[in-house]
C-alpha cells in the first residue's frame, strides 16, 4: 500500500530564511506527487504537483519541489519565507490513473519575525 511520511511535525523558521519540508513516499511505480497547504480554518490549496519530466517543479507562492526517485522523496522548498506562509503543509501521492490521494501527517510551519 502507498504511504507518505513527513518526518517533521513542526518546523519554525525566521522570516526571510530558507525552508525545506521533507516528504518520503512508498510506492512501486512513478507516483503522482502533490503538495497542499492548509491555513487555519481553510481548505486544502494545491501548491504544486509532479507527474513526469523535469524533476524540479515550480508552484504557486514561490514554492518549488524536487522529485528524487533514488531517495523516494519529494521535498518542498522556498528560498525566503514570509510570515504569511505559516500554515500546515501536506504531501500527498496517488497512483497513475488512480482515484484517491494518500496524505502524509502534515508539517506545521511557524514563522518567527
Amino acid at each position, binding site marked *: 500500500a502507498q504511504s507518505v511520511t513527513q518526518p517533521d511535525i513542526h518546523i519554525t523558521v525566521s522570516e526571510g530564511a530558507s525552508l525545506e519540508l521533507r516528504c518520503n513516499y512508498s510506492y512501486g511505480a512513478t507516483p*503522482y506527487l*502533490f503538495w*497542499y497547504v492548509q491555513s487555519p480554518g*481553510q*481548505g*486544502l*490549496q*494545491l501548491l504544486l*504537483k509532479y*507527474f*513526469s519530466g523535469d524533476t524540479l517543479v515550480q508552484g504557486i507562492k514561490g514554492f518549488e519541489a524536487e522529485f528524487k526517485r533514488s531517495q523516494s522523496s519529494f521535498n518542498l522548498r522556498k528560498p525566503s519565507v514570509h510570515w504569511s506562509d505559516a500554515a500546515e503543509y*501536506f504531501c*500527498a501521492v496517488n497512483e*497513475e*490513473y*488512480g*482515484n*484517491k*490521494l*494518500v*496524505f*502524509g*501527517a*502534515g508539517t506545521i510551519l511557524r514563522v518567527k519575525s
Partner: protein
Amino acid sequence: EPEVTQTPSHQVTQMGQEVILRCVPISNHLYFYWYRQILGQKVEFLVSFYNNEISEKSEIFDDQFSVERPDGSNFTLKIRSTKLEDSAMYFCASTRTSGGSSYEQYFGPGTRLTVT
C-alpha cells in the same frame, strides 16, 4: 475561478442522529471524493464517485456512510447514525479527469462535524 463549495461550514449533532453534508463540485468535473480529517490527524480518503456509482471506498466507509449525487450539481455524504468518533472535518473534492498532466483534486473548505 470556479471552486468547490460545502455546506454547512459547521454542524453539531447528537450521537445517533443522521447528518447530511453537502458539496457542490466544480461544474464540469466528473470525479468526486470525500475525505475526512480528525483533529490532529492526517487527511484520510473515504470514497470516490464517478458515473453515479462508488468507484472506490476505504475501510472507514462502512454501512453507516452513503453518498449520492441527487441532481446535476450536488454531491452529498450521509452518516446514518453518528458516533462520537465521526467528529472530524469533512472535505469534498472533485476532478475533471482521472489522470494525466492536468489531474488535480480541487478541495472545498470543509465541514466541521461535531458529535456530542
